[in-house]
C-alpha cells in the first residue's frame, strides 16, 4: 500500500514534468510546479515515515514496464524508506524554498520541466529492485540534474561544468553497470531478490564492490572522482544545488550501501580498508579545497566532500565490523553513517538555500564582494548561522551527534583482529578529527566574510531580506537541525529496522534512557545528552545574563571601532576570504596545492601599488584528469582516419574484427 502511494507520487511528478514543458512560459507556472512538487514530496514523506517508524514488512511490486522478460521491480524496505525520507525532506524544503526563489528565475522553461523529473529519478533509484530499473532511474536522475546544471547555459563555466559532469556521470554509470553485470552472473539474475539469494564468489564480489565504490563514489564525490562535483553543484539554481549536494550524493550512498551490505554477499575484511582510506582522505581534502575557495556555493560543494567522507568512514567501519562478525559494533557504525546522511541533507540544504538567498539579494557568489549581511538580512543570517554551527559539529546541534557516534564506533575498533585495520583505523580517526576542526575554520570563514564585517561592495550594501517562502524553508531546516541534535535517540531508534535488515542487529534502544540521552554501548563507556547540554547552556547563559543585568552597569554607547587606535573607514582594510585562510594555506597548502605567494614590493619612491599574487594548483586535476583527457584526445586523433575508409575497407575491417573475436571465443578456457 505504502509503496503504491510512493510510486503514485513519483508518477505524478513525471506527469508534472511533462506538463511543465507546456505551461512553463505562463505566469504562475513556477508556483504550480513547485507547489505540486511540494505536495507530492509531503505525501511521499509521510508514507515513508510511517513505513519506517512502524517497522513494517518490506513491500514489493512488479510492473510490466521496461525490458519485456524482466519488467520493473520496486521494493520498499527499511533502507529504502529511510533514504526516501531523506529525498522527500530535501524535496519538500527545496520546493518550498523555490516557491520564492524560483520567481527570480530568468528562464523558467529550462528549470521547471526538469525539476520534478529529477525528484522522480531520485525516488525511483531508492525504490528500484532490479538492476535495470536501478540503472535506468540512476541515469534518469543524472541526466535530469545535468539539464538543471545547464539551465544557465550561456555562462561559459556552466558549459564546462555540464560537460565534465556528463563525462563523469557516464563513467560512474558504466562502473555500476559492470558491477551489476558481475553480480547478475552468466544466468542474468537481474532482480535484486535473485542477487540476494545468490552467493557470488569472493573475488567476483570484491570486484563488483570496487566497481560499485567507483560508480557510487563518483556520484557521491569521493576523492579522486570528485572533479565534477564542485563544478556542477554550484552551477545549478540554488534549490537544485541543495538537492544535488544534500540529497543526490545520499542517493549515491544508498546505492553503495545496498550493494555492499545486501547484494555482494559476505564481506572480506579488506573491503573496508579501501572504503575507510578513501573516506578519510575525502573528508580532509574536501575541506582543504573548501578553505581555498572564494565562491560561496563552490565552498559548500567542496564541504559536501567532507561529509560524504565522514559517511563513508562510518560505512567502512560497519563493513569491517561485519566482516569480523561484530554485529553490535557494525550497527553502531552504520547508524552513525546513516544519521550523518540525514543530518548532512538537512544542514547542507539549509546552507545552499542561504547561499541562494544571498545570491538573490546581492547577485554575488564571490565572498570577497559580500560582508555585513547580518544587518541587512537578519533572519537569513540567523538561520544560516545555525546551519554553519551544525555543519561545524558544534554541540548541541545535529552534526555533532552523528560525528560523536562515528568517534564512538572508532573507539570500538581495537577489538578488530586484523593488523591492517589496526593501523588504518587510528589514522582515519586522526583524519576525521582534523576534518572536524577544519570544518569549524572553514565555516568561520564562510560566515564571517559573507555575513559579518562591513559590506565589501555596493551590492552587499544594498541587500534586502529574502522572501517569506525561502525563509520558511530555511527555518524549517534549522529547527530540524536543532531537534535532531538534542533528541538524537529518536533518530537512532528509527534507524533500528534498517540495521536489523542489513546487519541482523541494531543499537540498544535509546527511548528509555534517562533524560533522552544516547548510550551507544553501555553507560559506563560513553553517553551524551544533547538535550541536557542544550538546557545547561541556556540556563548558564541566562544566569550570566541576569546576573549582569542586576549587578553590572547597563550603559552602552555606540562609537567608531577602536582597532587599536587606527580604524580605517575603507572596507577594503578588513580581512578578506583570501587573507583569512592564509595561515591554513601556509600550513597545509604548500604541499597539497603547491600554493605560492609572490610579493611585488616596489622600491621607495615608486608609485606603483604593491601586489601579492597567490598561485595554487589542483594536483589531482593536473596529474590524474589532464593525462587521461590527453590520452583520450590522442587516441581519438589516431582513430580519426577510420572515418574516411572506403566501403571495401570498412567491410574487411568488420570481417577482421569478427574473425578475431571468434578466435578469442574459441580459445577461451
Amino acid at each position, binding site marked *: 500500500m505504502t509503496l503504491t502511494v510512493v510510486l503514485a507520487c513519483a508518477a505524478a511528478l513525471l506527469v508534472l514534468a511533462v506538463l511543465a514543458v507546456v505551461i512553463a512560459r505562463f505566469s504562475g507556472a513556477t508556483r504550480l510546479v513547485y507547489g505540486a512538487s511540494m505536495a507530492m514530496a509531503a505525501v511521499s514523506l509521510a508514507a515513508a515515515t510511517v513505513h519506517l517508524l512502524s517497522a513494517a514488512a518490506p513491500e514489493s511490486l512488479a510492473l510490466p514496464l521496461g525490458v519485456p522478460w524482466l519488467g520493473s521491480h520496486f521494493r520498499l524496505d527499511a533502507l529504502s524508506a529511510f533514504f526516501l525520507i531523506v529525498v522527500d525532506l530535501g524535496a519538500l524544503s527545496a520546493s518550498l524554498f523555490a516557491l520564492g526563489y524560483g520567481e527570480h528565475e530568468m528562464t523558467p522553461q529550462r528549470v521547471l520541466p526538469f525539476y520534478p523529473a529529477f525528484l522522480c529519478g531520485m525516488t525511483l533509484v531508492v525504490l528500484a529492485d532490479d538492476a535495470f530499473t536501478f540503472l535506468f532511474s540512476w541515469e534518469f536522475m543524472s541526466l535530469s540534474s545535468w539539464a538543471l546544471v545547464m539551465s544557465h547555459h550561456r555562462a561559459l563555466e556552466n558549459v564546462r561544468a555540464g560537460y565534465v559532469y556528463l563525462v563523469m556521470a557516464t563513467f560512474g554509470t558504466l562502473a555500476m553497470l559492470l558491477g551489476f553485470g558481475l553480480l547478475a552472473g552468466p544466468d542474468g539474475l537481474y532482480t535484486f531478490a535473485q542477487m540476494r539469494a545468490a552467493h557470488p564468489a569472493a573475488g567476483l564480489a570484491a570486484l563488483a564492490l570496487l566497481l560499485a565504490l567507483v560508480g557510487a563514489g563518483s556520484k557521491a564525490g569521493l576523492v579522486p572522482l570528485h572533479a565534477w562535483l564542485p563544478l556542477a553543484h554550484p552551477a545549478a539554481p540554488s534549490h537544485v544545488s541543495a538537492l544535488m549536494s544534500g540529497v543526490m550524493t545520499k542517493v549515491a550512498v544508498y546505492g553503495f550501501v545496498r550493494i555492499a551490505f545486501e547484494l555482494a554477499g559476505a564481506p572480506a575484511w579488506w573491503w573496508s580498508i579501501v572504503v575507510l582510506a578513501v573516506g578519510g582522505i575525502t573528508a580532509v581534502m574536501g575541506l582543504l579545497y573548501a578553505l581555498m575557495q572564494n565562491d560561496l556555493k563552490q565552498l559548500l560543494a567542496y564541504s559536501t566532500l567532507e561529509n560524504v567522507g565522514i559517511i563513508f568512514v562510518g560505512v567502512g567501519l560497519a563493513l569491517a565490523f561485519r566482516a569480523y562478525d561484530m554485529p553490535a559494533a557494525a550497527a553502531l557504525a552504520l547508524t552513525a553513517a546513516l544519521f550523518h546522511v540525514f543530518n548532512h541533507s538537512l544542514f547542507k540544504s539549509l546552507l545552499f538555500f542561504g547561499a541562494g538567498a544571498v545570491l538573490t539579494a546581492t547577485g554575488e557568489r564571490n565572498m570577497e564582494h559580500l560582508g555585513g549581511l*547580518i544587518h541587512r538580512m537578519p533572519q537569513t543570517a540567523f538561520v544560516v548561522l545555525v546551519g554553519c554551527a551544525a555543519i561545524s559539529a558544534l554541540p548541541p546541534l545535529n552534526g555533532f551527534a552523528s560525528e560523536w557516534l562515528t568517534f564512538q564506533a572508532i573507539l570500538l575498533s581495537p577489538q578488530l583482529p586484523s593488523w591492517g585495520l589496526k593501523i588504518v583505523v587510528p589514522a582515519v580517526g586522526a583524519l576525521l578529527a582534523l576534518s572536524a576542526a577544519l570544518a569549524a575554520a572553514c565555516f568561520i570563514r564562510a560566515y564571517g566574510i559573507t555575513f559579518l564585517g562591513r559590506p565589501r561592495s555596493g551590492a552587499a550594501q544594498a541587500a534586502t531580506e529574502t522572501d517569506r517562502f525561502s525563509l520558511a524553508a530555511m527555518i524549517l531546516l534549522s529547527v530540524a537541525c536543532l531537534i535532531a541534535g538534542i533528541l538524537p535517540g529518536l533518530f537512532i531508534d528509527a534507524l533500528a529496522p534498517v540495521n536489523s535488515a542489513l546487519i541482523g542487529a541494531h543499537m540498544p534502544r535509546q527511548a528509555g534512557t534517562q533524560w533522552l540521552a544516547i548510550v551507544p554501548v553501555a553507560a*559506563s563507556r560513553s553517553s551524551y545528552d544533547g538535550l541536557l547540554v542544550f538546557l545547561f547552556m541556556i540556563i548558564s547563559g541566562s544566569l550570566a545574563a541576569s546576573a549582569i543585568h542586576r549587578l553590572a552597569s547597563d550603559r552602552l554607547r555606540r562609537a567608531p571601532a577602536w582597532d587599536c587606535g587606527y580604524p580605517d573607514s575603507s572596507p577594503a582594510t578588513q580581512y578578506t576570504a583570501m587573507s583569512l585562510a592564509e595561515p591554513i594555506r601556509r600550513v597545509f597548502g604548500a604541499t597539497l596545492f603547491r600554493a605560492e605567494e609572490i610579493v611585488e614590493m616596489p622600491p621607495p619612491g615608486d608609485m606603483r601599488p604593491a601586489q601579492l599574487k597567490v598561485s595554487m594548483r589542483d594536483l589531482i586535476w593536473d596529474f590524474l584528469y589532464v593525462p587521461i583527457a590527453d590520452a583520450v584526445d590522442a587516441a581519438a586523433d589516431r582513430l580519426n582516419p577510420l572515418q574516411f575508409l572506403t566501403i571495401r575497407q570498412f567491410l574487411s575491417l568488420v570481417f577482421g574484427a569478427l574473425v578475431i573475436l571468434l578466435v578469442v571465443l574459441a580459445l577461451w578456457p
Partner: protein
Amino acid sequence: MALIRDLLIQGGQMLLLLVLAPLFTGFVRKMKARLQRRQGPPLIQPYRDLVRLSRKEVVLADQASWLFRTTPYLVFAATWVAASLIPTFRIDLLYSWSADLIAIIALLGSARFFIALAGLDVGTSFGGIGSSREAMIASLAEPAMIMVVFTLALIAGSTQLSNVAEFMASPQVGLRVSLGLALFGLVMVALAENGRVPIDNPATHLELTMVHEAMVLEYSGRHLALIELSAALKLLLYVSLLACIFLPWDIESAGASAPTLALGIFAYLGKLALGGFLLAVFETSIAKMRVFRVPEFLGAALMLGLLATLLRFVSASF
C-alpha cells in the same frame, strides 16, 4: 534526599570553579612576577578587574551586530558548562554522564567558533588577524586533543571523564608509554588552547603576534568582563583536566561523607597550586615562538597523540 545532596554538590562545584577561576589566574600571574623578582599584582587583582569592567559602560563599535553582543554570553555558557563537567574533587557528579570528554572538547570548540566570529563582526583588521590565526591554531590543536582523548578512552575503556579518573586512580593503570605521550600531547594542546607562552602571550596588547587578545580587542565593559572570566575558566578547566587524569588521587567517589569531600577539595586546591606553579615556571623559562612555528609545535602534539593511539591499537599493554 540523596538527589538534593547530589544537586548541591553539582551546583557547589560549578560555583567553586567560577569563584576559583580568577583566583587561579591571579595566582599564576603572581607566581610569574615573583619568579621575575617583581612584586606583582595582588592575588585578588583579577576579581577587581572584573568588578571594574562590569561597572564601566560598554563602548560598542558602530558596525557591531547582535552576534557581537550575544557572543560573550554564549562563550561563557559553553565554557562554564564544559568546566562543570570535569571532576574536580568528586567523580560521578549528578550530570557528569550528560557529556563525555569528546563533548567537552566540542563545547570549547563552540566557544571558540563564536569568539572567532565576533572577531570578524566589526570588520577591523586586528579582529581578522586574531580570528584567522585562532582558526589555524584550532585546526591543529583540536585533532591533537581528540587523539589524546582516543588514547585515554582506549586505556580506560570509556570516554566518560568520571570513569577515566576512576580508572586512573586504580592500580590497574601502571606506567604506560601511551599515557606518557598523551600527557605531553595534552600539555602542549592546553598551552595552545589557553593562549599561553610559547604560543601566545596573555599579558600583551598591541603586539602583531597576538591571537586571543586581537579577537576580543573591540570588547569593553561587561562584555569584556565575561570574556575574561571565560578565559580564566578555560585555563582552570585545562588544569583541572590534567589534574583529574594524571593526578587522580583524592578525588572522592559518590557517597563520600562531608569530611572526605573537604579532603577532596583541599587536594584539588593543592593540585591547582602545583599546576599554577609549574605553568609559571614554564612560561618564565621559555620565549614566545613565531606564529608560523606554532604549526610545528602543534603538529608534534598531533603526532604524539596519533602515536599513542596507534600504540593502543597495536597492543593493549602499551
